[in-house]
């Protein structure tokens, strides 16, 4: 019994069917917009909106003669941002260290806990409900108490607050990612007589990556917020939170706003860093495929 040669009709079908599907993956198709044009199309509206809002802000604060302590002009904020740059960036650096430290501690514990829920059903059934409940608590309210636990002058007290804030979303999301697996994939691995460790490595962990990174993106912004709010409750003066507080108390609002601008830049930079790592870690994911080509 030898296989029959495919008829011409079959080959035609095969080709017409499958080359069409690949048309979208060929990349540089003549007539397609170039790189710059796509870039402008993607980011142009946001950039334009940013400029318009700033311009309106400047014009309206001038035209309506709004007091600086209510809302400073962008130009004033920019002026302080530049003249005070060494101070506020120095403060920003120390706040960032607190945020990063807490992020790493909280994130690591969260991932360890998520893996423990896979390994031991008792942890999953006994502790996960409490973790989900804890996630709904306003954890930032712990800040004064954490300052008390971990010596208010030590950055560790701020890291403690940040790590608790980071822990819950990362833990809950990663756990979901480890469990919300396509049952077909589990059957497949079972048919291959794979060990639980192999199932973890080949299916659960890759499946959890998108969940994990979504949580990290949320946690990156939360960690900066957490660090600054924890600083409001006391500690060394050379950090963003205390600086904003002191300047506001002295009615030096443009200074406070300049510090807030630094905090925002740090938050955005942190977020972008996570996005870049995410792209490296899972180029296969559906949300990132468009940039991949074929």
């Amino acid at each position: 019994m030898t296989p029959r040669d495919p008829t011409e009709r079959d080959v035609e079908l095969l080709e017409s069917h499958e080359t069409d599907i690949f048309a979208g993956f060929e990349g540089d198709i003549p007539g397609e917009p170039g790189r710059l044009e796509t870039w402008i199309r993607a980011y142009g509206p946001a950039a334009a909106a940013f400029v318009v809002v700033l311009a309106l802000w400047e014009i309206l604060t001038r035209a309506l003669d709004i007091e600086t302590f209510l809302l400073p002009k962008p130009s004033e904020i920019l002026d302080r941002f530049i003249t005070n740059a060494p101070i506020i960036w120095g403060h920003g650096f120390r706040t960032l260290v607190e945020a990063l430290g807490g992020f790493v501690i909280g994130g690591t514990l969260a991932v360890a806990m998520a893996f423990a829920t896979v390994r031991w059903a008792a942890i999953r059934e006994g502790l996960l409900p409490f973790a989900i409940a804890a996630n709904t608590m306003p954890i930032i309210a712990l800040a004064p108490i954490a300052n008390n636990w971990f010596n208010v002058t030590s950055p560790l007290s701020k890291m403690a607050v940040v790590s608790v804030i980071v822990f819950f979303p990362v833990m809950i999301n990663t756990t979901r990612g480890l469990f919300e697996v396509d049952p077909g994939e589990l059957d497949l691995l079972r048919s291959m007589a794979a060990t639980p460790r192999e199932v973890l490595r080949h299916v659960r962990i890759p499946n959890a990556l998108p969940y994990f990174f979504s949580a990290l993106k949320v946690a990156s912004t939360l960690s900066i917020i957490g660090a600054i709010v924890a600083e409001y409750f006391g500690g060394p003066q050379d950090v963003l939170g205390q600086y904003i507080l002191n300047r506001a108390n002295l009615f030096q609002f443009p200074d406070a706003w300049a510090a807030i601008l630094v905090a925002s830049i740090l938050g955005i930079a942190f977020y972008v860093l996570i996005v870049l790592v995410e792209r490296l870690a899972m180029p296969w994911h559906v949300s990132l495929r468009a940039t991949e080509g074929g």
Partner: protein
Amino acid sequence: MSDAVVVARGVGKVFGTDTDRVEALRGIDLQIARGEFISLIGPSGCGKSTLLRLIGDLLQPSAGELVVNGKPPRQARLDRDYGIVFQQPTLLDWRTVRANVELPLEIMGVAREERAARAEEMLALVQLAEFADHHPWQLSGGMQQRVAIARALGFRPALLLMDEPFGALDEMTRELMQQELLRIWTETETTVVFVTHSIPEAVFLSTRVVVMSPRPGRISAVIDVPLAHPRDVETRESDDYYRLITEVREALRRGETGEGRR
């Protein structure tokens, strides 16, 4: 008997608890010889997929006995005696086509060079060698299903279990895939158990068609398909083919209305 790849004796399966139980299968007796191509056909709820999953040790029977390759199904699974293809290709998105085909070999602990060579061979068999470095989402549904077949055949299993593998494909692709599958079956000399609800598909592919009826699922008829090999477009237009399709259809209807129940 020694040449039987699958032996089922009085196999039954009940799902659920005492208060809420569904009898999916009752009294299944079946022998599948080496090299056969068996289709399980029947309406939804007749337990054909359940029977396949029992053979593959993805489920445990509630009654009776199953022997796969002379062993209990569990042992056959641990020995990697069978490859399985589901209705969905179930390819891992994070792996390339090649790495997907290599997955079972990797889990078996086959050395890297050997893995690469076998993946190459299997991808050539399903005519996808040039797509080895693509990711699954870049392939059409039919191509993805061919990757799944290559993966299932990678460790040269004695038994290939297929659960409506072409169910999600359009008619044209489906006929091509059936043709491909027959060619692969001929080349690899595997035994195939194939679940389908398409009568023409069952007749075109099989050496025997096992007709099942629902509530509870049981075998209502077994029909031999003596069509000559190789089968092709002409087979699909032959009188014998139509006659067998009619025969299977009538057996299905008899099973449905309860005639011929023992």
